[in-house]
């Protein structure tokens, strides 16, 4: 029995090796790696070491493609993907740190005195209360070239759904936006997709779709006109607006 198993294992191994030696460039692996690396761009500054390592691996992988060493290239692409995913994860989990490193680092130890107005604690904050008709609507953010709602932004949509449940006569408009990178026409479509995705989440939460209008502005209305990660992150967004 064990022998048969061994034989099968060897057969599978040989088959796999044969397949990968068949001489085709690892197109899927490459695409996944390139995409993952592009998505890891946000972590370029805060996870620099890993980012540079991923960049080097990608360079090597492309070189192996040119040298027609497709097995080696495939291995390298997989490594790029793994590393890039880790960077992206780090970036998502440490957004504050990553953005701070975007050139704001030095403002910390400059010896100035910080003074803040602290809200008095006995006044309840009603701006985030879904029972308050004047509740502040929160902004939903997106990853580069993505329209899926981020896990951490789902509570914002839940809050919006509660508010819409509480005020059934109200109609809202979701405005979808993209960052400045990419063409105007594709960004209009991306903004539309983002607004639609948020709308669908509200519908799933039980809100009548007739009460939700959507409009895309593409890259036309940035909240921050700068060209850096921090600005781009702020600009990739869906905003809720009151229609009535």
């Amino acid at each position: 029995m064990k022998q048969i198993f061994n034989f099968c294992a060897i057969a599978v191994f040989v088959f796999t090796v044969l397949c990968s030696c068949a001489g085709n460039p690892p197109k899927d692996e490459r695409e996944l790696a390139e995409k993952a690396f592009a998505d890891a761009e946000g972590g370029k500054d805060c996870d620099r070491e890993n980012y540079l390592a991923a960049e080097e691996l990608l360079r090597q992988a492309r070189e192996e493609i040119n040298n027609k060493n497709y097995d080696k290239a495939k291995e390298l692409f997989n490594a790029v993907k793994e590393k890039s995913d880790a960077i992206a994860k780090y970036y998502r989990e440490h957004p504050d740190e990553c953005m701070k490193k975007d050139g704001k680092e030095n403002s910390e130890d400059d010896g100035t005195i910080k003074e803040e107005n602290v809200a008095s604690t006995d006044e309840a904050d009603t701006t985030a209360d879904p029972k308050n008709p004047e509740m502040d609507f929160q902004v939903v953010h997106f990853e580069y070239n993505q329209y899926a709602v981020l896990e951490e932004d789902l509570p914002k949509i839940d809050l919006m759904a509660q508010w819409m449940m509480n005020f059934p006569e109200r109609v809202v408009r979701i405005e979808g936006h993209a960052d400045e990178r990419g063409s105007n026409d594709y960004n209009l479509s991306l903004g539309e997709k983002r607004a639609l995705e948020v709308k669908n989440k509200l519908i799933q939460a039980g809100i009548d779709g007739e009460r939700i209008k959507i409009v895309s502005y593409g890259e036309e209305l940035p909240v921050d006109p700068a060209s850096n990660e921090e600005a781009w992150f702020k600009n990739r967004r869906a905003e809720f607006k009151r229609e009535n």
Partner: protein
Amino acid sequence: MSVHFRLITLTAVIFACFNLFAQLQVEVKDGAVAEYNMAVSPLAVLDGADAAHASEISSAIEKVLDITGYFKVLDKKSFLEKPETAFKAVNFKAWLDVGANGLIKGTIKGKDDVELELAFFDVAKGKALIQKKYSSKAALAKKSAYRFAAEVIKLLTGEEMNFMFSKIAFVEKTGEKYSLVVTNFDGSGRKELYSTSKTILLPEWSADGSKIFFTSHEKNNPNLYSYDLKTSQIKTVSAYDGLNVSASAYPDNKTIALCLSKDGNSEIYSLDTMTNELKRLTVNSEIDAAPSVSPNGQEIVFVSGRSGNPQIYRMSLSDLNKVERLTEQGNYNQDPEYSPDGTKVAFSGRDEKYQFDLFIIDLASRQISRITQNQGKNESPTFSPDSKIIGFSSNRSGKSKLFLSNVSGTKQIAVYSGEGEVQMPSWSPAETN
């Protein structure tokens, strides 16, 4: 790969190289690839002609030659011979001394009714190869000069160019204000057609050049409008809920391809603007956008996110299942634009340095060549009607300006820079010359 197949490939490569070599020789002989030094002498101003008009005309000739990338226009300061020297008395030695291969000379007579006489000389041969006389109202004299320049270009390069008889529309964004602007091909003669604070996006010419389609959020939804250049009237073309963007004209002058999201996703449709008959062309859960119709009206190129990131595709309009992906390199390729001669597609793509640059796909060979590199953000390529020049927006020098480049990317110049940022240029069809 079999040895046999490799052999065929190798032979093909050698053959291709040989071909290229042969072609280069011809072009060098004609003065095309090797830089051809052209002296454009100031015009001799006679019989009450306006000196400013005369210099405007000779600059226009210089500009046209320069834009093609085939000529080095020599600095007038070095010229030894007076403009007034008669065609028959040209001292070719004096032109050889300033390094000229070719010489353009001319005279202008009259103020309102202008007589323009122009001649092109081969300096080495010491003779005139083209000599023409044009009579017209003053306003048309520049056009005569363009006709002459086109003849010189044809003679020296074998290429028919008519980009000088066309216009470029674009959006100029100044603060919150969007303006729909049209200029001549060289950025001169700026005309503001329409302005609003509610966005003007993606202008595109109708097939006959009489209208410009554009999208605006004027009514808080991105609707498609047309601006009639004769009557200045703006009409709504498409106002479905959601996107009504990226019009691209069919050669029949009534149908357009466009991107709508009324069915819940960005898809491409064709719309008969006379009957309002709508036909859906793409069905895909990812984004399909930015159609550009081929000059014969039988295909479109467009952007789709169906592979996970935006890439350029080509689809047959007679068989919507016939879709092929044109770009494999890079993971962010957009803005496709069919060349009017049907042989090329220009697009903008994000390169390994995360910059947007322009590329051209040669449809026959599938070779992709790069037009811009390390020069800021370069977007929205648009072909001149002769497919020889590409217009685009670039922020390489800070503010976004209107740039022109020849298709090999070897000659790139800014032709318009105004108060605002230049965005989304679109080149008109050729006017009759």
